[in-house]
């Protein structure tokens, strides 16, 4: 019963918190650039404004274009519900593990890429092809990170990994450091952050994610934006949970434990969001043809993380 309550709370939390996190990152970046920046709650207002607007659909678009925003949002939302944030005691925990998480994100990406190609313009194809290039390397890198974690903890379920780490079975491992580096690189790529993609760009030829969703407007655009925000929250939560799980409430913890978990989660989230803002401000976007090197590096880091486990006898 508790598991159901926490699951519902998680479902609401990820969606409610996501725009705030995105707004906060933008605010910190603006401050670091010497600007005042929009208020951190501006994304909520943006989403509401978009929902009130009429959706414009091209003549050549099919039902995929209209369905894709909802499917993308639902799949990213579902994925975010699986990542333990303040507690691991959730109903969905036995239904999906990290591999399913990666695949659910792939569902969202599949539909968005198809929607980009649906209208039959050059930009949609541009965005879709670049996005799929990034995905074809980022997804294996994330699976290799999962592999390393599963070798260390003996499981692919995030809740079980947290339990393993909190039980004190893991020391300071080189492999964990490498896996963390790989996951951060993947997170940057998946969320379309600098240096892979500039989320605030207006130049179509530099776009990856934005080019795919160039045609969207109104409530469809609101759904796509919301999906991006939830995806960012998902990855921040994932990094915090897998590599710094202290504070998360385990099954059997009372309301106080859950409150502590919530506090820890919020603290970690805002810390990581600040780090992201600082990182984005200090580095430039890379050329499209260097994506393969960057993400290939992430994949090789993941592979190294797995191989290093053998020498440190953690396997």
């Amino acid at each position, binding site marked *: 019963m508790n598991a159901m309550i926490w699951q519902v709370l998680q479902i609401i939390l990820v969606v409610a918190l996501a725009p705030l996190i995105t707004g906060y990152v933008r605010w910190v970046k603006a401050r670091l650039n010497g600007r005042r920046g929009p208020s951190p709650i501006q994304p909520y207002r943006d989403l509401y404004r978009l929902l009130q607007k009429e959706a414009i659909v091209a003549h050549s678009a099919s039902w995929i274009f209209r369905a894709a925003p909802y499917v993308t949002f639902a799949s990213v939302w579902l994925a975010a519900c699986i990542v333990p944030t303040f507690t691991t005691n959730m109903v969905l925990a036995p239904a999906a593990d990290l591999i399913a998480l990666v695949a659910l994100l792939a569902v969202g990406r599949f539909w968005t890429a198809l929607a980009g190609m649906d209208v039959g313009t050059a930009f949609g194809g541009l965005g879709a092809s670049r996005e*799929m290039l990034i995905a074809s390397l980022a997804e294996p890198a994330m699976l290799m990170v999962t592999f390393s974690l599963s070798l260390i903890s003996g499981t692919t379920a995030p809740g079980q990994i947290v339990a393993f780490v909190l039980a004190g079975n893991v020391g300071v491992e080189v492999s964990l450091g490498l896996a963390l580096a790989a996951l951060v690189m993947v997170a940057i790529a998946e969320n379309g952050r600098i240096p892979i993609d500039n989320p605030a760009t207006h130049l179509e030829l530099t776009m990856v994610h934005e080019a795919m969703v160039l045609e969207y407007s109104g409530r469809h655009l609101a759904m796509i934006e919301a999906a991006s925000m939830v995806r960012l929250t998902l990855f921040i939560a994932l990094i915090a949970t897998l590599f710094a799980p202290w504070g998360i409430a385990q099954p059997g913890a009372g309301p106080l434990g859950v409150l502590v978990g919530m506090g820890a989660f919020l603290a970690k989230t805002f810390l990581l969001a600040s780090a992201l803002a600082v990182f984005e401000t200090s580095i430039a976007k890379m050329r499209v043809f260097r994506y393969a090197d960057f993400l290939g590096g992430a994949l090789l880091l993941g592979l190294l993380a797995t191989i290093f486990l053998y020498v440190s006898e953690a396997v």
Partner: protein
Amino acid sequence: MLIAGALLSLPLLALFAVLVGRRDAAHSITYAGCFVASIALLAGGLTYLGGHDASPRLVLPLGLPWLKAHFRIDNLSALFMLMINLGAAAASAFAVGYSQHLPQRRRVTPFFPLFLLAMNLVLMADDAFIFLVSWEFMSLASWLMVVSDHTEEENRKAGNVYLIMAAFGTFCLLPAFGLMAGPGGDFTFDAMRIKDLGLMGGFLVALLAIMGAGSKAGLVPLHAWLPLAHPAAPSHVSALMSGVMTKVALYGMIRILLDLHGTLSWHWGAGLMLVGGITAVMGVLYAVLQDDLKTLLAYSTVENIGVAVIGLGLAIAFKGDGQTELAALALVASLYHMANHSVFKTLLFLGAGAVISATGHRSLTVLGGLLKRMPWTGTAFLVGAAAISALPPLNGFVSEWLILQSLFKGPAMPHWAMKFGVPVVGAFLALAAALAATCFVRAYGIAFLGRPRSTDAAQATEVSFGMRWSMVVLAVLCVVLGVIPVTVTDALSHAVQPLTGVQFAVSADLGWPWLSPVSATRGAYSGTILVMFGLALFAIAIFTVHRLGTQAIRRADPWDCGHPEDIPQTQYTSQSFAQPLRRAFGHTIFQARETVVMPEPGDDAPATHKVTMFDPIWSGLYAPLGRVIGWIADHVNRLQYLTVRGYLLMMFLTLVFMLLVVAVRQQL
């Protein structure tokens, strides 16, 4: 007996097609008959799968007089019969309408029932003779259909390569069976099962079996015939060759390596895993750069066979190490992938057939916007594309998940080659899966979405009832196999049990909706629950949006930076989509180079963009081999033109040589 009746009806249908072939209706009737026969065989397979201790056997006084013909349906055969006949039924139903679009149908229809017959006989064979005869029959029947459109040069070349590779396959399998039968010459499978092969014999049999069955399945580097032959055949035949015949080849591999051989060490498993990994990555790399829809699908088959062989290799490695539980898991994962592939690859090829019959084209460069013109085909193809890209909650994801879970258990083995090999193969598998999604986003997006790139595509119409429904049923099956994985794994574990000695319970810990191999804490997946939650969230999202916001929608022109061009050529082409991938992956492996020639301002010559690539496996292996064989053939040909004295000299020399051998042996 249902099965016997169905099998006997197939040659009769072939005869019927030959005699009455001139009439159009005869072809539809033949295919309808094949459909009924396939359903009957399917039902037969279903009754024999499932915990039966005694498998039905039959010995007929056919074939070699001292051997007779042995037939047996055990759990493994029954499982594969299910897979094969499902695909066959779908393809037959499709062909009822599709055959009307084939100009060369009189050369195709008679061989189709024979092809089905041969494949089923391979599965039911219980001795080497029937196995090999049926195997050859299968190759020949499909070859005849591959070269049915012999007016095209590329089809003739495809037929030649196919015939040579099929002969090579049998050439490997014959000595394998011979070695297993031994000097006593007992070719029944029962005798082979208990015979001890010894070190050398065991090695040779395993190698030959992998080469022989692997070439038929499409393992790199023996795959080269697949992307030539599968597109050359008519689409319903391609569907069967890709989706079903490759599974028969893998059945042969499983039968020999896991059942008849019995003493395989883990080294073979490791080697097979590596070959599977390389096959998967190479297959999908080729696929992602293809323009021809059917060649793309053929290369994608190579990739999926690689994935299934990874699972098979893992199973052999685990079994050779004595870890039968894990071997059962890996084998179930591999079989699940084979079943899934036979469903969605058949679906995709039938979809390609529908596209070809509606537009007359196979090349992605002239398709586009077909979803609006052919909604049923488009939606079914979408389900197939999503399934092959391993997206939950469809079936492709479940088999991918199971194989990954068994891979993650790989380092439990003490051998260092496995410990290092498993992460590398895992990286290959993950890369192949991600690239497959890319490949099918490209194929589907270019062919079905966007604006039509030619008038043929703009005027396409939806296909007929039978063609539509065969695809829809397969699409529904993709969903079902993904949402009730535990039922499927329970069925598969019946087949796995005699091979590994373990009754594999995949959801022992958590109960029915959850797939939790090994244990609940290890990692679990539930397609049913994810679908339920996913649909709930989807509904909540739509409901909330429509409550909070407006439902207004307006149709307008697409945004094109202020330059509204109505020319469909401004949209992305298939090669444009592939360009980043070509640059990232193709630069070294395929030597992909682009040259752009821009004329000077004022010069009105056209600008040209040229892409050159080369096929490393064909240029590196097949072409030199072909040249060497040609050279040898030319020189040996001189023996045809000797004088009488020359022939006498040869006979004399042979005689002297043999006498010398006898003399030397006497001395030793």
